C-alpha cells in the first residue's frame, strides 16, 4: 500500500509505502516529492545503519573491529506507525484597538503604538508546544534486545532510532547561504539515534565498545529538466530525466586580490566579474560534475585531514539543454545541500569585525588545519565523517530492484559500492542519484583524535543541515554568480582523462 501525504500550508506532497500504517520495509521511504508542483525527488530513504564495534581488553587494547549492517526491519527493530506531523498556523496579532484611529494615523503610527504586541513572538506563535518546524512524517524504532545481548559484555544494551522527514514553508529565513538572499523550502531527512548504556557490563572482562554508527542515505533527486534533442531544440521527452550536480569547497580566507580583480573586471565585462567573484568564493569547484564521483565531505569533524581536502556542499539541478547553467553562487532553481560554510562566507555584519564570525558547529578553541568555517551538524556529535557520491541510476543499486539485497547497498568500505566499474561521463546531464553517508565516531582516546576534549554523545541527530529546494527563475539585472562551467583546481580535461571516481577538493 501507499499513503499519500500533502500539506496545503507548506505546499509539499509525497507518497510513502506502508504496511498497515507502518513503514513498508527498511524504514520510511518518500516517493514523488514535490513542492508547489515543482518536482524535487523520486525517492528519498535511509538504506540502513552500520555499527563498528571492537572488543577492548582490560589493558585498553582493541581487537580487530567488526562492522555490522542493520536495517530498520524486523527482527532487528520494532517500529511505530507512521505519524504525520502538521505545522501549527502562525497567528496574526489582533490590532482591533488600533483600528479606532484608522482615519487619523498612518499604518506606521499604528505599528508603533502596538509595538509591545508586535514584538512578542507569543503573538505569532500562540501555542508554545505547537510544531512550528514544518510538515512531515515520523516513525520511531526500538532495537530488539537480542541485537546487543548476543554480543558478550557490550557497553550498550539498547538503541532507539527516530526517522523524521521534515519539510518547511518557502522563504529566505532561515538563510541557507551566508548572504541570506535566496528563497527556498527546506527538507530535513533527520535520523536520531540514542544508545542505552548497559548497566551490567563487567569491567574486568573484555568490553565490546561502539566505535561508530553510520547512516547511509540514497537521495534520488529529480528536478525539472529541459533537455535538448541530439539535433538541438527541445527533446521529444524529458527522458532519461537528465539532472546535473556540482561540488564546491568554499574559501576559508578572503582572497582580497581576487575580489579587487572582480570589482575591476566588472567595469570591463560583467561576465569577467562573475568569474572572478566565483574564484574568490570557491577554493575548489566542479560545476558541473564531469564524471560520476565518490567524494569526501568531512573527515572526523574536519574539512581537511592529512592529504584529504573535503568538499563543503553539493548543488543539484535539472539540465537545461542549450540554456544557461545555474548560477554559482546563486542557483535559484536547484537543491542546495551545505554541511559546512567556509570562513570567507560567514555573515559578519558590515563594519562589525569585532565579532568572531560564525565558527560554530565544532567546539571553540580548536585550531589548526581543517577547523575553519562553520560546521552545520549536531554539535553534540560533531566528530563525524561525511561522504557523498553521485552515480547514474543503476538497477543493481536500486533498493527495489529485482534480487537486490539491502545490505549490498551499504558496503563496509562505502565507496566500493561505486568504484567497481569505470566512472561514467555525466557532464551532459544524466539520470543520476545522490548517495550520502554520515558516520558518527566515538573516539576512545586522545591518540585516536588529538583535538577531542569534549566527549561525543551517545545520542544525536544526523542531517540537521537538510536540503534547501529553491525553485525561482534565475535573477536578472544583476551579475550574480557565473552561469558557465567552473572547474578548478582540476580542469575538465584532467578530470576526464584521470577517470577517477574518488576526487577530493584539492
Amino acid at each position, binding site marked *: 500500500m501507499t499513503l499519500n501525504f500533502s500539506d496545503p500550508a507548506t505546499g509539499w506532497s509525497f507518497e510513502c509505502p506502508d504496511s498497515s500504517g507502518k513503514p513498508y520495509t527498511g524504514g520510511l521511504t518518500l516517493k514523488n516529492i514535490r513542492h508547489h508542483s515543482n518536482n524535487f525527488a*523520486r525517492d528519498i530513504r535511509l538504506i540502513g545503519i552500520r555499527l563498528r564495534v571492537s572488543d577492548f581488553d582490560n589493558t585498553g587494547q582493541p581487537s580487530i573491529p567488526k562492522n555490522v549492517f542493520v536495517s530498520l526491519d524486523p527482527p532487528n527493530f520494532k517500529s511505530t506507525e507512521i505519524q504525520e506531523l502538521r505545522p501549527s498556523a502562525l497567528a496574526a496579532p489582533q490590532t482591533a484597538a488600533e483600528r479606532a484611529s484608522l482615519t487619523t494615523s498612518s499604518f506606521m503610527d499604528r505599528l508603533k503604538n502596538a509595538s509591545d504586541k508586535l514584538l512578542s513572538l507569543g503573538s505569532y506563535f500562540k501555542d508554545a508546544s505547537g510544531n512550528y518546524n514544518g510538515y512531515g512524517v515520523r516513525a520511531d524504532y526500538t532495537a530488539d534486545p537480542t541485537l546487543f545481548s548476543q554480543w558478550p559484555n557490550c557497553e550498550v544494551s539498547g538503541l532507539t532510532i527516530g526517522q523524521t522527514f521534515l519539510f518547511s514553508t518557502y522563504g529566505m529565513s532561515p538563510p541557507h547561504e551566508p548572504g541570506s538572499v535566496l528563497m527556498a523550502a527546506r527538507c530535513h531527512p533527520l535520523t536520531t539515534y540514542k544508545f542505552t548504556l548497559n548497566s551490567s557490563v563487567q569491567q574486568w572482562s573484555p568490553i565490546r565498545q561502539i566505535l561508530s554508527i553510520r547512516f547511509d542515505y540514497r537521495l534520488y533527486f529529480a528536478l525539472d529538466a529541459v533537455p535538448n534533442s541530439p539535433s538541438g531544440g527541445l527533446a521529444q521527452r524529458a527522458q532519461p530525466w537528465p539532472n546535473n550536480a556540482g561540488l564546491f569547497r568554499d574559501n576559508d580566507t578572503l582572497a582580497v586580490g581576487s575580489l579587487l580583480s572582480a*570589482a575591476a573586471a566588472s567595469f570591463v565585462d560583467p561576465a569577467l566579474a562573475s568569474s572572478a567573484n566565483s574564484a574568490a568564493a570557491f577554493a575548489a569547484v566542479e560545476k558541473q560534475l564531469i564524471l560520476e564521483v565518490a567524494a569526501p565531505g568531512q573527515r572526523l569533524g574536519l574539512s581537511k585531514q592529512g592529504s584529504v581536502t573535503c568538499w563543503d556542499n553539493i548543488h543539484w539541478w535539472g539540465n537545461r539543454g542549450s540554456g544557461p547553467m545555474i548560477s554559482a553562487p546563486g542557483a535559484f532553481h536547484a537543491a542546495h545541500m551545505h554541511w559546512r560554510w567556509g570562513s570567507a562566507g560567514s555573515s559578519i555584519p558590515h563594519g562589525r569585525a569585532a565579532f568572531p*564570525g560564525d565558527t560554530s558547529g565544532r567546539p571553540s578553541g580548536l585550531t589548526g588545519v*581543517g577547523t575553519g568555517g562553520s560546521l552545520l551538524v549536531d554539535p553534540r556529535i560533531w566528530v563525524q565523517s561525511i561522504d557523498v557520491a553521485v552515480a547514474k541510476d543503476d538497477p543493481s543499486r536500486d533498493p527495489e530492484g529485482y534480487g537486490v539485497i539491502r545490505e549490498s547497498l551499504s558496503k563496509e568500505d562505502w565507496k566500493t559500492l561505486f568504484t567497481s566499474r569505470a566512472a561514467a561521463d555525466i557532464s551532459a546531464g544524466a539520470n543520476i542519484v545522490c548517495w550520502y553517508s554520515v558516520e558518527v565516531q566515538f573516539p576512545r582516546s586522545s591518540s585516536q583524535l588529538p583535538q577531542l576534549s*569534549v566527549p561525543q554523545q551517545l545520542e544525536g541527530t544526523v542531517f540537521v543541515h537538510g536540503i534547501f529546494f529553491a525553485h525561482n527563475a534565475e535573477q536578472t539585472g544583476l551579475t550574480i554568480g557565473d552561469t558557465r562551467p567552473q572547474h578548478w583546481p582540476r580542469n575538465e580535461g584532467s578530470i576526464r582523462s584521470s577517470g577517477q571516481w574518488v576526487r577530493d577538493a584539492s
Partner: protein
Amino acid sequence: MTSTARIWALADPNLISSPKASAAIEQAFRTALGATDRSRHRVTIMPGFIEHEDTRGLWNAGDATALSAEQARDYAVKTITTVSKALSTEANKALANAIGPMQLVPPQVKPIDVLPIASMQSGSWDHWLVRSRPQLTLDVTAGTYADVFGAEVDVRIGPAGAVLGYLSRWRPLSGEHIDVDLSAPPATASNTDPNHPAQRTIAFVLEGESAPQHYLAPYYLIANGEDLELASASPLSLVVHITRYSSEDPTQYVAVVEGGSGDYRFDWGLLPLSDFTEITLAHLGEGQTVTDRSTNPASSLSVVTLPIGAHLALLNVIDQQTGAFQHHSEQVYVAGSTSAGASGGSSS
C-alpha cells in the same frame, strides 16, 4: 532632489482569514479560473500564497508542445489579468472591514521565464510553466518601479491552453502606503573594493510564506563575491544578523540590526532542530541589551546564551523610534569549548 521610496502596508491577515472573506476570495478565484468543480480543482488560500491545482489535469495533460512557449505565455498573462480583476472587485466586496481596496494578488507582473515541464513518471511534456515577478511603485514622483523579491506568480498551462496550476506567492496589500526618503546605498559592502561600487539593484522584499511581516520596504540587493546580500534602502528597511558574540564563550550569540534608528527592542525564541523529543518553542525574551557605539548612530544589540545543540533561533525586532519591524530566523549550531591548548587535526 532626494529620491523617495514607497512603503506598502500589508493587510491584516485576520481580515482575510475570516470565514466570510476567505469564502469570497475562494469563490472569485475559482470563477476567474473556471475551477468551480471542487472535486477536481484544489484551491488553497494562505497568508503567504494563493494556490490552485487541477488535480486531474496536472501530470495527465497530454503533449504540452502542441502549444508554443509564446502561446503559453500569452495564456498565462491573460489568466493573471483575469484573476487580478476578479479578486480586486468581487473579493473586495466581502472585505467590509478593510482599510482600502486590497491588492489580493500582485497589481503588476512581468513574465520572466517560460519552461516546458515533464511528468516525472512518463517523461512526456505535460505543461508549460510561466513564471512572473511582481513589481510595485518605488518612487511615485520619478515613476520608477521595483521588483518584489520573494514574490512570484507561477501559471501552469496545459496543451489546450487550460490553466492546470496557479500559484501567487504574495501577501495582500492593505491599500495604504507612505513615502519616505530613499537611504543612500552602503558606502562599502563587505568583501568589495570601496573604489569600485558593488553591483546592486533595489527591490522590495517579501519574507517567507509564514514569516511575520507587516509591510513591504525596499532593500538594496548587492552581488558580492559569495552571493547576494541585503542592505537597507529606507529607514523602515531593517536588516538583522545573528552571529557569535565572542570567541571566549561559544554559546553567546548576538543580534545585530542595520538600517534603522539604532534604538531597538528584541524578542528571542528557540525551536529544536536536532532534538524532537519535545517540539516546544523556548521563549528567551529580550536578551541582554548592550549599546554598540562603534556605529553612527549608536545601535542596540541583544545578546543571548543558547544551549548546546542545533536550533532554529527566532527573533523579532522593533525600532522604537519608527515602529519598523523585522522578523528573522537562523539555524544555529551551538557547540561547547575545548580545554585550553587543544589543537586541530594533522597538519599538511
